[in-house]
């Protein structure tokens, strides 16, 4: 058992008296879950403290002593690979009077010194010194009490680092469950099954974080919300981008899938043929594209298709509850800031030439891959975010309570399939994934998880 300073979620008392059976129903949810600051405060513990939350990618801290700042819900944390190589999530919060001790986004450091009164900590969280210790009574600084708080359970799956404050949470592996398969496929199309995170396309919106998560596998909105993007992508070419949503998206081979624990997946790959170059063919037009294609085809013949696919965005949305989305080549992180403010940060990824068989073409592939990644945040996501903001605005209407997600509910058998493991698959515009996620949300919000921190650098093991 991990030694942890246990405490009740605390938020339990805040939202006591909320009737979750009323707020979250089979076909609809109350506006209140998007607008109520008390519910938001409870979510920061009952969700962002109680389940595995994505905090960073290993490629951001490749070497010992590397760190990157992040958040666990609203908690400021430092994700560091300590001097012994162990990945930790330290609270960026001085144990003296509470100031943040690290104010740099990323870097390399063996320890952190608080700018306020100079308390110093090693990068494993241990208090390493305080100025003029003779000003404290003999045993006043003994023990673990003044080490940094840290998350006892930090674990990673193929480069993605997660943390949870919940001693009773399942293993990360069990938590991810079925969504590991699309994550594996997303990685395994890259050389060596790896990507390197670079910088990010950074956006924010004035709306609740769940609006972004609800939308993550929504195939219903595409032709309407992205009407201008579809028109733009096809002004000079045909069948580019998300054209397969036009006409009859529910009749198309793509599907939406729900894995449990709030994880879902919209898989648009079945709309393409299975062969090298198919992804490249539907890629919309980007800076440098024709040059790279002609150059690769001339020099590489058939192999050009494989290389061009590496610069193309994969038509999938892989959504790991509550805050991680893989789409195209991006690692998108949803970061709640307040009940009505959210950051969506689209980390770019680059190809790594793990096996050394890309050679000199790596730079051209990655340059083009940067350009393909810039496309959607510029011409698609901004329209989504405006719609999320306008939902938040619409939800100001207190008496008009319900937000519906019943598309597909009650229709004929066979539209939705459920396999023996409980994985649900439905047509692209069905809202079944949202309804299932809301069931998980309701269960989590009705629970009182045993969350806590540790100050013992040797505790925990993920």
């Amino acid at each position, binding site marked *: 058992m991990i030694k942890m300073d246990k405490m009740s979620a605390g938020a339990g008392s805040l939202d006591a008296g909320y009737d979750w059976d009323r707020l979250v129903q089979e076909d609809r949810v109350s506006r209140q879950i998007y607008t109520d600051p008390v519910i938001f405060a409870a979510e920061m513990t009952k969700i962002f403290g109680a389940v595995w939350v994505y905090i960073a990618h290993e490629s951001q801290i490749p070497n010992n002593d590397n760190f990157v700042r992040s958040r666990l819900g609203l908690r400021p944390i430092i994700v560091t690979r300590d001097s012994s190589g162990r990945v930790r999530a330290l609270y960026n919060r001085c144990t003296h009077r509470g100031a943040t001790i690290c104010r740099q986004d990323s870097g390399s450091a063996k320890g952190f010194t608080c700018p306020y009164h100079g308390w110093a900590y090693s990068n494993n969280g241990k208090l390493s010194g305080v100025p003029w210790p003779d000003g404290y009574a003999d045993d006043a600084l003994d023990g673990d009490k003044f080490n940094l708080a840290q998350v006892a359970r930090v674990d990673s799956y193929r480069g993605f680092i997660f943390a949870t404050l919940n001693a009773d949470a399942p293993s990360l592996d069990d938590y991810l469950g079925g969504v590991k398969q699309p994550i594996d496929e997303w990685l395994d199309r890259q050389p060596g099954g790896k990507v390197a995170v670079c910088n990010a396309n950074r956006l924010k919106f004035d709306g609740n974080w769940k609006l972004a998560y609800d939308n993550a596998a929504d195939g219903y909105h595409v032709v309407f919300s992205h009407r201008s993007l579809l028109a733009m992508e096809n002004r000079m070419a045909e069948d580019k981008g998300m054209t397969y949503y036009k006409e009859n998206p529910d009749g198309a081979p793509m599907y939406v899938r729900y894995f449990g624990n709030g994880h879902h997946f919209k898989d648009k790959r079945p709309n393409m043929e299975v062969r090298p170059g198919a992804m490249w063919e539907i890629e919309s037009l980007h800076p*440098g594209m024709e040059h790279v294609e002609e150059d690769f085809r001339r020099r590489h013949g058939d192999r050009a298709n494989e290389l061009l696919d590496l610069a193309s965005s994969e038509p999938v949305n892989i959504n790991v509850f509550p805050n991680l989305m893989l789409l195209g080549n991006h690692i998108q992180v949803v970061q709640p800031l307040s009940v009505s403010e959210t950051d969506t940060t689209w980390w770019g990824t680059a190809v790594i030439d793990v096996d050394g068989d890309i050679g000199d073409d790596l730079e051209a592939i990655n340059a083009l891959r940067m350009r393909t990644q810039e496309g959607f945040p*510029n011409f698609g996501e901004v329209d989504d975010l405006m719609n999320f903001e306008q939902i938040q605005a619409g939800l100001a209407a207190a008496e008009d309570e319900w937000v519906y997600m019943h598309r597909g509910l009650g229709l004929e058998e066979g539209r939705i399939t459920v396999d023996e493991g409980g994985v649900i698959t439905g047509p692209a515009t069905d809202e079944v994934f949202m309804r299932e996620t809301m069931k998980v949300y309701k269960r989590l919000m009705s629970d009182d998880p045993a969350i806590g921190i540790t100050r013992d650098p040797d505790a925990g093991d993920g």
Partner: protein
Amino acid sequence: MNHDPSKTSHYVDAGFYEKLIADFGGWQSDAAEQSDVGLRDSCRRFLEKEARFLDQGRNAEWLGLFAPECLYWVPASLDGGDPRREVAVSFDDRRRMEDRVFRLDTDHAWSQQPVSRTARLVSNVTVYATDAADDVFMVRSNFLTTEFQAGDKRIYTGWYGHQLRRLGNSNGESWQILVKQVNLIDCDQNLRNPSIVL
């Protein structure tokens, strides 16, 4: 081979990136600063015209200020970064600039419904000579763009780096934009609805 850069993108190649990074590194030296008042005024008036076109929604005319093979670049890192390894806020070649304008003109770009009202201030204009050619200058200016949309006022601020080519003619000067680099002071932060041309 001749390619129409509005239709196909051939010019954004390895050499283009290399030259871009070289041209946009270390150009602001005191030695290269131009003291000619007429030159500065000519550049300043050109930048003001560009800002005016954007404020007035004259997007097609704005595109007309650029060379056929051009770049509109909003880096996501403070020093401009290396666009071969980093995503930018925007990195538009000629075709993508036309895409951008096309999309805004569809009336279905919801991020621009209602269309933002903007007022751009451009100042602190400094002109620098370049090693490359007598008719190519780098111009640094500060900008402050105030945007009003749906009851909300927002600002974008920072500095522009314009790479301009002088098109000499008998009645004074006119200019063509080769590269417009937009350096937001918060380029590496999360931005709310960055859907206007900056």
